[in-house]
């Protein structure tokens, strides 16, 4: 591949979401933005080998895409009416060296309640991260043709119904944010699926997911879910180096070399989780909660315990994973018998909190009994539900009496992933698997 080809590819990878987000806002049409960018990239492939790679590829692509969209403007009455916005955007971009990041706006537009719920997160993955329909379909375990149709339909709806690309008012955020988080986490999970990242594309996807989580966390620093998701991703990220051995095989969590964990990353994750926990707990439980198992990672990687983050982290699980945890915890409880320490609850506590608290306590013990996490945990959560359904038909979930075998290094790719995974609820897991440090 020539250097200019590589430059086009790199520019496309780095700036794709930003450029589409900008174009979508400009044209009020995602498809037009994607087309314009594709056109700009094609032009880059033709001209860069002759004239050399521009100093600022992103700005070059932006200009090319903008010219293309302007041409289209002339023929389109709808866009002509948006003249004022366009003029303003032109001015905004006129002198700017870099493209203003509008990806959050674009993601929130994709998460609009007027769009079919099932397609919101996939739509974001495609539009913001540039994943093709078949990749998105794999991540969400649906047929590529079906996914492709849904995506096309959703994009048409954005245009036809004039769904806005401005930041919605604050009251509308919480519901939409959940979808945004789903998409970010699915992207991160997808980079795990694709293996240990030596491949530039996989690395870019992971980095992009992390970057988006930072963008969102910076935009809404008061939302516990946002902080907790970023925290979870950073926990996973901190273990990335230790996750594979010299031969590139997965290392189970309890065999990982702790010194290879990234302390800075862990501390940041810890800080975020605490922030999330205090907010979630305040919001959900009032002051009734009793801190029993909060996990703390000291710089050396020594774990201590206490409980709110577990609760918070659990609250942040997607519904599908919650029900999985409930099933696990429930079966564990039956196995332990009625004498096990079932937490008591005051009636004043909300049912939600009651469930959460039970699950956290019980599944923490339950997880101790398993040396690995089931494959279901190993994937982006968008695909957890269908996977659980298929697991139910083909294999039993690990239980207390039948702890999963130590993850073999020779089993299927799914099993290999499972030995060390990104999931939103591994706090207790990590603690109990990585160390058997006594609780204080």
């Amino acid at each position, binding site marked *: 591949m020539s250097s200019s080809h590589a430059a086009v590819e790199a520019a496309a990878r780095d700036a794709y979401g930003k450029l589409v987000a900008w174009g979508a806002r400009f044209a009020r049409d995602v498809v037009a933005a994607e087309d314009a960018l594709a056109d700009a990239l094609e032009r880059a492939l033709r001209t860069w080998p002759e004239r050399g790679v521009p100093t600022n590829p992103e700005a070059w692509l932006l200009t090319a895409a903008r010219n293309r969209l302007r041409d289209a403007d002339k*023929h*389109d*009455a*709808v866009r002509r*009416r948006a003249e004022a916005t366009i003029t303003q955007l032109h001015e905004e971009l006129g002198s700017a060296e870099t493209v203003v990041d509008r990806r959050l706006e674009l993601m929130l537009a994709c998460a*609009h309640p*007027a769009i079919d719920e099932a397609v919101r997160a996939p739509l974001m993955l495609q539009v913001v991260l540039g994943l093709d329909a078949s990749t998105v379909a794999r991540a969400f375990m649906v047929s590529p043709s079906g996914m492709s149709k849904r995506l096309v339909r959703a994009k048409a709806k954005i245009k*036809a*119904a*004039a*769904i*806005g690309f*401005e930041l*919605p008012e604050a009251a*509308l955020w919480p519901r939409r944010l959940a979808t945004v988080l789903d998409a970010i986490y699915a992207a991160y999970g997808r980079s795990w699926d694709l293996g240990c990242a030596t491949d530039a594309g996989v690395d870019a996807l992971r980095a992009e997911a992390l970057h988006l989580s930072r963008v969102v966390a910076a935009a809404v620093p008061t939302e516990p879910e946002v902080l907790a998701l970023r925290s979870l991703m950073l926990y996973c990220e901190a273990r990335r180096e230790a996750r594979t051995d010299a031969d590139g095989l997965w290392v189970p969590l309890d065999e990982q070399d702790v010194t290879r964990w990234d302390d800075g990353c862990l501390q940041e994750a810890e800080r975020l989780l605490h922030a999330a926990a205090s907010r979630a707990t305040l919001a959900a439980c009032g002051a009734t909660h009793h801190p029993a198992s909060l996990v703390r990672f000291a710089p050396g990687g020594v774990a201590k315990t206490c409980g709110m983050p577990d609760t918070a982290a659990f609250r942040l699980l997607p519904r599908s994973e919650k029900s999985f945890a409930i099933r696990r915890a429930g079966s564990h409880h039956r196995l332990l018998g009625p004498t096990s320490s079932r937490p008591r609850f005051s009636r004043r506590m909300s049912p939600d909190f009651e469930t959460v608290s039970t699950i956290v306590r019980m599944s923490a013990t339950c997880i101790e009994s398993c040396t690995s996490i089931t494959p279901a945990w190993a994937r982006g959560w968008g695909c957890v539900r269908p996977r659980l359904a298929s697991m139910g038909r083909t294999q039993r979930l690990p239980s207390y009496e039948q702890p999963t075998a130590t993850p073999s290094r020779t089993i299927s790719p799914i099993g290999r992933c499972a030995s060390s995974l990104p999931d939103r609820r591994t706090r207790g897991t990590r603690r109990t698997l990585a160390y058997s440090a006594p609780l204080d």
Partner: protein
Amino acid sequence: MQYAILIYESPEDLHIRREGSEAHQEVNSAYATYTKALIEAGVMRGGEELALPDAATTLVAKQGGRPVVQDGPFADVKEQLGGFYIIEVETLDDAIAWASRCPAANRCKVEIRPIEVPPSA
């Protein structure tokens, strides 16, 4: 961007209109207030209250023949189109905001449908 706000009245609402009771007057004044707000905000482009579906006549196309005239509204469902507004706003969110202030929004179904723009007007 123009949107139609289509108001589908529930059987209860239709009943209120049929009876012409005090409740009906309340509903009417709520609509008057809403319409006034739309006009004052400069977004109102049109709208009408439709007569009761009892008054509707439907033409049904017959293959290879003239359309057949039938009594009653097109769809035999509980909620019936009772009226509509045409508003002009920037985005769907603005349209949703206006539609949710419509007196019908708390009681029955309100559909928001963009008005088709001719390709090169």
